[in-house]
């Protein structure tokens, strides 16, 4: 398997329907990367820090990229982003904000916190599939990702 296919992608998304759609889009784009889904910000942080129910490192591989929704129940995406980018061991992982919000304040705040890019979720499936395809092509074929530390 080419290296870029083995890198897991962490998707932080609370809506089951959106998660289903994202998963579909990955399938239709022909991507075989293992996807890990966390439904809440706290869960995502537990996963990344390998604590709570993700203590077993096998159950929590280091993701190559993180797709992060902003509006999450409990600890929301903006806080998760800040924590990731503040943490020495985590901040090299590219975080792509994938959210319905197009509020300029959110955009500025995310880039200010160190997000690697910001995508507004397309409403239709086709649009999402395209976006996912492009995302994959860019991040896994054009870009060189950092080595896992």
């Amino acid at each position, binding site marked *: 398997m080419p290296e870029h296919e083995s890198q897991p992608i962490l998707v932080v998304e*609370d*809506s*089951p*329907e959106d998660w289903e759609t994202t998963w579909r889009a990955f399938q239709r784009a022909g991507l075989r990367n293992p996807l890990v889904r966390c*439904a*809440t910000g706290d869960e995502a942080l537990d996963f990344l820090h390998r604590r709570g129910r993700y203590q077993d490192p096998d159950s929590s591989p280091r993701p190559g990229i993180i797709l992060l929704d902003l509006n999450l*129940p*409990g*600890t*929301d995406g903006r806080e998760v982003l800040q924590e990731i980018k503040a943490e020495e061991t985590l901040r090299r992982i590219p975080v792509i904000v994938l959210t319905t919000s197009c509020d300029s304040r959110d955009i500025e705040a995310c880039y200010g916190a160190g997000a690697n890019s910001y995508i507004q979720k397309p409403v239709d499936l086709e649009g999402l599939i395209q976006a996912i395809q492009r995302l994959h092509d860019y991040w896994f074929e054009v870009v060189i990702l950092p080595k896992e530390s």
Partner: protein
Amino acid sequence: MGRLDELSIRRKLIAVIALGSVIVLLLANAALFVWDSLAYRRDLQERLESVAEIAGRNSTAAIQFNDPATATELLASLETQPDVRWAAIYDGDDALFAGYASNPALEPPPAPPASSVATSREGVAIARPILLDGRRVGTIAVLGGLDGLYARMFRRALTIGLVLIAALLTALLLAQRLQRVISEPILRLARVARAVSAERNYSLRAPAGTRDEVGQLVGSFNDMLAQIQRRDAALLAAKETLEERVEERTAQLQQELGERHRAEQELARRNEELEQTNRELDDFAYIASHDLKEPLRGIHNYSQFLLEDYADRLDEEGRVKLRTLIRLSRRMETLIDSLLHYSRLGRGDLTFTNVDVNELLAEVLDLHAMTLREKRIDVRVPARLPVVRADRDRLGEVLANLITNAVKYNDKQEPWIEIGTAEPATSNGGPTFYVRDNGIGIQDRHLDTVFRIFKRLHSRDEFGGGTGAGLTIVRKIIDRHQGRVWIESRPGEGTTVFFSLPA
């Protein structure tokens, strides 16, 4: 003395000088007068005594030879002495031997006076023994009249009187001149003082004068005037400064007033704008929800139709997806309704009545009776709740939302909820209520975010789901009652939501 005080200074001085002189003169003269009289009398006495002596000696022979005629002749020679009123010689047996009287009306006494000198109204009587070879052979007595004395005294008094009158006149004249020395400086001072007082002109000064106490008085007076002048000037300057400041302040205040007026106008204008906006928002919210719900209904119903009409041609997965569709559209409707409700809460009118919270709570608990029973919730109301001033329906909503939350977010085997009043009452004096549970609790960092609309702490279907608007609505309602909401919680142990209402 009273009358003396009323005279002017000049007259006083003149009076004092004149009177003084005259009185002194009078006293001096009186003394001289008295002394003179006394001297005269002594003189007279001495004279009479010597006369008597001589006459007595000269008459020894007459007595011896018992010759009263000679003796009488001898006595008659006393006529030359005008003072002698009578004279008498007595023999050894004190019998009148010879006598003489200047005035036939008078008569010497038959017997010699008892004492050698006697003074009476009639005059001075002298009695002397007549001695012959040391042996008393008779007595001679002489009476001297005081007429001379009286005449002299009269003459004297007259003289004194005239002298005194002259002296008085001279004194008056002199005093007239002399008093000026004292009175003039005083009068000048008095004049200036009167002028200062009448004209209120403090720039006048009394002319400097003598070096005595009056001069000092003048100096002090002038000093005082100078002080008054200075003080006046200072007062004037202060008054001007004050007036300036008052003007400044008045201008300032007017400006502030103007600004405030403008600000008030601005405020009124904004208020109107806001009301306008509110009205528009209300319309907007209603219309929006109305228009949003229409396609939603379509989605919902058509999914339902698909489910009904094509159920047999779909596999289970397909049916699951359709049901998800229906569920999602219902969720959307709930969200729209929540939003509209929330927006209405911010703008609608509240109807305040006296609400018995016990009754209200009972109603709410009744409404949720089934859920409470299903989940076996132990409901505790430790004390009687008060009557408060609030909008009954809205307050009921608050209780319902809080109780619902308390019931939902509970994972304990023996769940309970408690509703009561808390101490202390808040600063505005109203009651504080709480709804407490032994549920899952809330982390400190989420204590504020839980109030955000549609914000949940868990994923959609955990803990009974929900739109995440419950606490938002509670806060909105309590805010509109001018109260406060706050939460205390221990994750894993339970949560208490407090809310206070004003008095």
